[in-house]
């Protein structure tokens, strides 16, 4: 193996690694007398610089048209791979900006270092095609996130949420590695790139695949592996909740799509996992949307909404066409942008004042923070699927890709039987559920925009630096741009499959 190629391929990641150790080192070496807030700010700056450098490096590699492939499919960095990494690091940058304002404990530099470590894991997960590296990267993500969720050690809820996340995550990763062992036993290889020239469809393979999907389903929070989501979103530090909702989801979906796209061709493999995935999608949409209706806590509401979104994006996978895969990725990226933004605004408005995120806590935000509230409006409307925002386009692509796969027939019985019937039913359900979701999104917005009296938990402007505001508006702008002008990005994704 050529170690120089390896070095070149992982250069952006190495920059991030250096940045995270620099953040720790600067904090331990130079900042001992300073206040936790100041130390958090410095660690955040160091991490941001590292991420920016990594993004520049990625852009440079992309412009050069570099393609890196590390043996056994460990890394596959073509244009899409580089883009996936750039998306992950971009989201990290936003989360780090939000995290600098308020660190939940005195361990400011470790907070940022753990976020960077999980970002590294997500970067590898999104670009690998090797089950072994995927397992290790997934665990890197999970372990950092367990610690981050339990980070607010002064609050018992945080530790409890961390435990819940850990227990569910532990079982999920046991299932994942069990699935990997069966897949390995069936195919004799850990590289999913070799599946295409392999035609033996054994029970071993099917079962392994189902177990691997269980492990990933936990990360994406689809029913029935969603139970941790509301508690974790509610009790974790808000930037961490944003991170759990966006980064780990994006990375898992990238890997999930690769996994499904790599399945050996033939109708058997498609049907093998179709019914379980479709059932999971249906129940995710139902439980997510109906659960969100009952929430009075904004973070829990967004958690249920994210379960529902997990259901939507499975539709693209179920469509099983390149368009469907691209639509799933497009949707999850857009969803992640909106969610990071929404959680960011929630954190900015209420974290320092110890608000626990109930809807009333945000009443009157419109007057105190008009700009941030407007951005929040964009994020939520995008998630609800209102044109011309990106969420609408994402849903359109998803549903269109599913309908594209339906073999048209004027006989109703034929139209509604088997795979066709599932797809039609899924899209119809998703449409109905999107309408229902409008209700709770509007309910959340009402607290922000309409209410006259100001909540005592509302934060003042102090400490919201222009950099953070810039970050919120950049996210809002992206959501708007991807909504109005989605063509190039979508075409780019479609070209990958």
């Amino acid at each position, binding site marked *: 193996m050529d170690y120089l190629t390896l070095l070149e391929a992982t250069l952006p990641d190495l920059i991030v690694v250096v940045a995270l150790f620099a953040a720790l080192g600067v904090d*331990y070496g130079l900042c001992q007398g300073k206040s936790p807030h100041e130390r958090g700010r410095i660690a955040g700056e160091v991490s941001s610089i590292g991420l920016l450098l990594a993004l520049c490096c990625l852009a440079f590699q992309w412009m050069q048209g570099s393609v890196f492939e590390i043996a056994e499919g*460990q*890394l596959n960095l073509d244009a899409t791979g580089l883009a996936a990494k750039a998306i992950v690091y971009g989201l990290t940058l936003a989360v780090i900006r939000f995290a600098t304002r308020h660190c939940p404990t005195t361990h400011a530099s470790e907070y940022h270092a753990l976020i960077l470590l999980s970002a590294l*894991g997500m970067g590898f997960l999104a670009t690998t095609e090797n089950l072994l590296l995927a397992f290790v990267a997934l665990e890197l993500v999970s372990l950092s996130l367990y*610690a981050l969720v*339990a980070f607010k050690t002064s609050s018992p809820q945080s530790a409890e949420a961390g435990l819940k996340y850990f227990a569910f995550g532990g079982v999920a990763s046991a299932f994942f590695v069990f699935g990997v062992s069966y897949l390995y036993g069936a195919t004799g290889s850990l590289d999913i790139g070799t599946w295409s020239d392999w035609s033996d469809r054994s029970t*071993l393979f099917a*079962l392994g695949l189902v177990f691997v999907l269980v492990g990933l389903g936990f990360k994406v929070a689809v029913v029935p592996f969603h139970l941790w989501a509301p508690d974790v979103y509610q009790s974790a530090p808000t930037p961490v909740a944003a991170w759990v909702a966006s980064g780990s989801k994006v990375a898992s979906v990238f890997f999930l799509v690769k996994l499904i796209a790599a399945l050996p061709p033939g109708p058997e493999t498609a049907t093998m996992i179709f019914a379980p995935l479709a059932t999971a999608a249906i129940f995710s949409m139902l439980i997510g949307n109906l659960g969100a209706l009952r929430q009075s806590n904004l973070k829990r509401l967004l958690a249920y909404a994210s379960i529902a979104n997990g259901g939507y994006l499975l539709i693209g996978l179920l469509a099983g066409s390149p368009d469907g895969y691209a639509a799933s990725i497009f949707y999850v990226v857009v969803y992640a942008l909106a969610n990071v933004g929404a959680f960011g605004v929630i954190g900015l408005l209420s974290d320092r004042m110890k608000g626990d995120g109930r809807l009333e806590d945000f009443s009157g935000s419109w007057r105190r923070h008009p700009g941030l509230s407007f951005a929040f409006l964009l994020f939520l409307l995008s998630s609800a699927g209102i044109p011309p925002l990106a969420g609408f386009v994402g849903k359109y692509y998803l549903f269109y890709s599913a309908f594209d796969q339906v073999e048209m027939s004027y006989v109703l019985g034929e139209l509604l039987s088997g795979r066709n019937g599932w797809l039609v039913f899924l899209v119809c359900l998703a449409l109905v559920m999107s309408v229902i979701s409008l209700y709770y999104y509007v309910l959340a917005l009402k607290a922000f925009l309409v209410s006259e009296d100001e909540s005592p938990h509302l934060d003042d402007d102090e400490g919201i630096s222009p950099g953070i505001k810039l970050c919120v508006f950049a996210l809002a702008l992206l959501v708007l741009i991807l909504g109005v002008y989605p063509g190039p990005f979508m075409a780019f994704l479609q070209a990958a499959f």
Partner: protein
Amino acid sequence: MTIAFYVFASVALLGAILAVQVTNLVRAVFGLLLFFGALAGLFLLLMAEFLAAVQILVYVGAVGILMLFAIMLTQRVTGDDRRGGGSRGGFWGFLLAIATFCFVLLPVLRDAHLHEQSATGASLTTKLLGERLMDPYALTLEVTALLLTAALLGAIVVAKGTSEDGEGEENE
């Protein structure tokens, strides 16, 4: 060979059942240690002698001791688990576990080609393991290093907690 397999397998099962069943936590840990040891024996039977050694070092050594420490830290010293013996949602739990078991066993029952496989010659040497780690899997090894960093940082921060009573933890 066969006898050794059945001995190790039944010891492993016994240890596992002990670990899950017993109410006294310290005894449960010893059940777990028994299980880890028997598993190392099974690895030996599969000619993975290096993994057997690692299994004993990491699990019987480090993890077992760590568990015992955790019991001492949280349960007073006796480790009596007064209330933990009962089950919650026992029926559904059993149903789920048995369903999973049936699923997991399906390939063994259905895939004929599994039965035709026989053990290959002793090619899985430790030397080969080391070479494979360095050659194709160097990147994975690096990512594992990051994972250990994350575990180290996370465990320290979470277990140490905050000092709400001032900045009393300068000695990181």
